Every structure is written in structure tokens, then in C-alpha cells.
């Protein structure tokens, strides 16, 4: 069984924001929400690095641990999803997530939060696979069609790679060996502390 992970190679990411755009378009995410973002570290200075980040689909997910209505579940592929029909928009998953993944659509009157939205690894949600209802609430379910997340598929430099953890770790290791850099599997020690 695959254990799906994201890996962003900071030596390759050029901050083109294609992943952000691809995700926004493929999943028709709610207004005001961007499930993926690119953060530039040391912008404009020598040694500048860019990293694309979204939900990392953590092994022992903090969001799931604090949710008062217990609406998260982890698929057989290790993808962390949630049920918007149960979510009450309390914001606790946002407090707990190390990567700033959970977001809320445009605030309603009196600053009330809507239902939480986050990256689904293009795996939809708990509704019937590829149904209209699933698409409207969670976006495209590419995983059920045997495809990988569109953000990684779109990445021109292949900085952002998605897929089975062992496979993408091998790809990355090979790169590191060839170019003689030190490995920097950004975010992995937080998201996947037990491997």
C-alpha cells in the first residue's frame, strides 16, 4: 500500500506559482482560499529558497487530534481528509496545523468562519467518488482515477513531487547524490516523524 507524501525540492523551486494556479483551477476552491502557496525565504538575497506548501497529510495529524467533532479520517493511502458536512468551522485545526493548511472561506456576518477547506491530495472527500457533490465540496478526485495531484504534475522543474513516500524519497536521494548537495526533505520531520 502506498503512503502518499509531498516533497518540495528547495534547490529546484523557482517560485512560478504554477502549482498554486493549477490547484485553484482544478479544484475550483472557495473564494479567498488557496490550498497551496509558495513561500520565498530570504527573498532577493543570495541563497534565496522557495518552497511550495500545502497540507502535508501528516502521519499523526494534529488537525485530526483537536477537531471537536472528529471529522477527519486518513485514507488507506495515508491521505488526511475531512467531512465538511460535520465541520462546524471552529478553527481548531488551523490553530494546531504546523503548515497553515486549514483555511476558511470568506467570513460571514460577525466574523463567523465557514467550513474548513484544505488540500485533499486531489482525493476528493467522503462523498461518492467523482460525484458532482464531491466535486463541489472538495474538488477533483484524481486519485480515484489513478492520477497524482495536479500541482505536482504541473510543476515545470519537478521541484514539487507527490506520490508514494518511498518512491519520491528515492527520486530525491538520486538528485541529491548527482548534484552533491545535502538532503533537505523540508517538513518531513514534522509531518512524518515516524517515517
Amino acid at each position, binding site marked *: 500500500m502506498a503512503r502518499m507524501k509531498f516533497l518540495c525540492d528547495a534547490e529546484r523551486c523557482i*517560485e512560478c*506559482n504554477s502549482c*498554486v494556479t493549477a490547484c485553484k483551477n482544478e479544484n475550483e476552491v472557495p473564494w*479567498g*482560499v*488557496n490550498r*497551496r*502557496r*509558495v*513561500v*520565498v*525565504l*530570504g*527573498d532577493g*538575497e*543570495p*541563497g*534565496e*529558497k522557495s*518552497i511550495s*506548501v500545502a497540507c502535508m497529510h501528516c502521519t499523526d495529524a*494534529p488537525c485530526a*487530534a*483537536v*477537531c*471537536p*467533532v*472528529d*471529522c477527519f479520517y486518513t485514507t488507506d493511502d495515508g491521505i488526511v481528509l475531512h*467531512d465538511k*458536512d*460535520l*465541520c*462546524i*468551522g*471552529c*478553527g*481548531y485545526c*488551523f*490553530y*494546531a*496545523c*504546523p*503548515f*497553515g493548511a486549514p*483555511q*476558511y*472561506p*470568506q*467570513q460571514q456576518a*460577525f*466574523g*463567523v*468562519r465557514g467550513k474548513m477547506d484544505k488540500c485533499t491530495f486531489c482525493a476528493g472527500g467522503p462523498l461518492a467518488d467523482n460525484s458532482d457533490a464531491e466535486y463541489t465540496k472538495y474538488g477533483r478526485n484524481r486519485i480515484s482515477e489513478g492520477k497524482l495531484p495536479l500541482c505536482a504534475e504541473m510543476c515545470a522543474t519537478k521541484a514539487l513531487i507527490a506520490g508514494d513516500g518511498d518512491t519520491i524519497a528515492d527520486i530525491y536521494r538520486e538528485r541529491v547524490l548527482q548534484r552533491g548537495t*545535502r538532503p*533537505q526533505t*523540508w*517538513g518531513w520531520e*514534522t509531518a512524518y516523524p515516524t517515517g
Partner: protein
Amino acid sequence: MATHKITTGRVRSKRVRQMTQTLALVLVCAMVLPLTGYLFPETQSVTAQAQQATGDANQRSEFWRVVREGGAGYSSVVSSVANPETNTLYNITGQNWRQIRNGLIANYGGWFLFGVVIAIVLFYALRGRIDLTEPESGERVQRWGFWERSLHWYTASLFIALTVTGLSLLFGRALLIPLLGPEGFSFWAGLSINIHNTLGPFFVLGPILMFIFWVRHNLPTAVDVAWFFKGGGIIGKAHPSAGKLNGGEKVWFWIVILLGVGAVSFSGFALIGWVQEYFGVEFTRSYAQYMHILHSVSALLWIAVFFGHVYIGTIGSEGSLDAMTRGHVSKEWAKQHHDLWYDEVKDAEESSASPASSSETESTA
């Protein structure tokens, strides 16, 4: 004709002038505005922070250390409405908050409240009700007016609503999902959070008005200290002296004001969306986590003391509930629990000598 041509020509040259000026302004802004970054040296880049921390040798690992500890970068993506932390890759404070919320608050906090209830039940079993030592003669003493009782029950009913809804959010996952099922509980939790966040701001009015109207009854005196040393008449069989309010009641009053308003209501307000908007606070994760911990820890402590308050006002002490429901108490209750206050009332009644004075008497049927 000629004049017309001249005017259009003027208009055209004016337009050209405006356009060149605008262009120049845009160019100047484009060159100058980025420099304003130098005005704010505190918004340091990750690389600068890493350089400061070590020499150049370890800079690369330092770079990632700074990032891991929440060093901010730059993101052109405007993520989520009103999320000031889009530029931050990592915020590992959430892990600590998770531990505190699920461990200290939801787990130990639950056992703590359960323990308090057990302690009260045990106390009742051992000590029993504090009975009146003299039989009631039927003579009554006025204690709280209609307005004061309204204020008390306004505050109490909202307190209970906030406690039930707040505790549902905190313990519902463990206790209510098995009972109501995921859909049922989600419905109740959604209702709870909305009731809680709507009634909260109305609730605070109660303690604030109580402070204004009742603070004069609640200033501590030497009598209160002696009252505590004698166990308050709750522990043991002594009948220590007390004025209108005894030491224990004054402590409850100050808990309501300091813990209730100062900690619970303050942090509750701080977590509400429209309050944040109004005061323009940056809703960062650390802010939310601190306020949430302050709110739930202080709320649990307050609820624990509240249980004690309810016990002593109902089954714990004979005749006490009358004071807040009917507004008057028996003469015997007044003499036994608040002798100094009873004397005051009697003195006032005798000196004014009119029958319809502050302590109206009535016979119980």
C-alpha cells in the same frame, strides 16, 4: 472655430502633461517604495537571522533551523481571508497547543471537574445539610430586591448556557459522539458554538453590573477573616459572625470579577471574529492558542467554584435559596448566618419606627 481649436489643443497638451506626470510618479514610486523595507529592520529575513545566529560556517543548517522555528518569508499568494501568517512555512507551536488542549484541558480538566462533583457529593454525605438551629417563627426579612434577583438570574442562566455549550465543545468528542452519533453531535456542536459565541458578549454585562451594584457589600473586613478562621460555619458547628455577605460569598464575588471577567470573558471576547475585526488584532495562531488556553483553563476553574456555589445555595444550607428566589429569608436564617446584618436591619427598622420600612415582615402561610 479658432477658439475651439485652441481649447482642444490645450486640453490635449494638458492630457499629455498629466500622463507624463503620472508616469513619472509611478516610476518614482516603483523605485522608492521597495526601499521602505529598510525602515522596518525588525522584519528581518530568514538569511539575516541565520547569519546573526552563527558565523558563515553553519549558515545553511541555521537557515533551516530559523525556518523551522517560524521564521517568515515572502509569499505572493494571498492565502485564506485574514490570515496574517501566509508567509510563515512552519508554526510548530500548534503541537504544544494540541498537547495542552487535549491533555491538560480535555483530559485532566475533565477528571478535575468530575472530582469536584464527587467531592461535593461526599461532603454532602458526611456533613449533610446545614440546618437552621431554631424553628422558623414565620417572620421574614427582606434581603434582595426584584432588580437584584433579576440580575442574579440573568447572569446565572447565561452562565449555565455558556457552560453547557462550552463543555459540549470540549468534552463532546469523548462523551457525546458515542451518544448522538457523528451527525447528531455535529449538529449540536454547531448550535453550541453559535449559542456560545452569541450569548458570551451578553453574559459579561451581568458580572459588570454586579460589580457596580454589589461591590459595596463585598469589601473585605476583619469580620471576614475571623469567619474563615472559624471554618465559615460550613466545616464544624460554629456560627461565626457575618455582615450582609460572609467571607465565602465575598470570595465568590471576587472570583466572578477577577477570574470571570478578567480571564474568562476577556479571552472569550478575544476569540470572537467581530471583536478581532473591531480592534484590528492580528489573528495569528499563537494569539489564538494563548487565548484559547486562558479561556478554557479559567472557565474550568470558574465552573468548579460555581458547582460549590450552587451546592451551598441549594441543598447545602437550609433556607438559603429563598434569598435569591423569593427575595426574603426567615428571621432565624438571618440571625444564624448573617447576625451583624440582621442587627443592622433591626436597628434601622426600630429607628425609623414606621412599619413599612426596609425590612418588611410578612407571615408565611
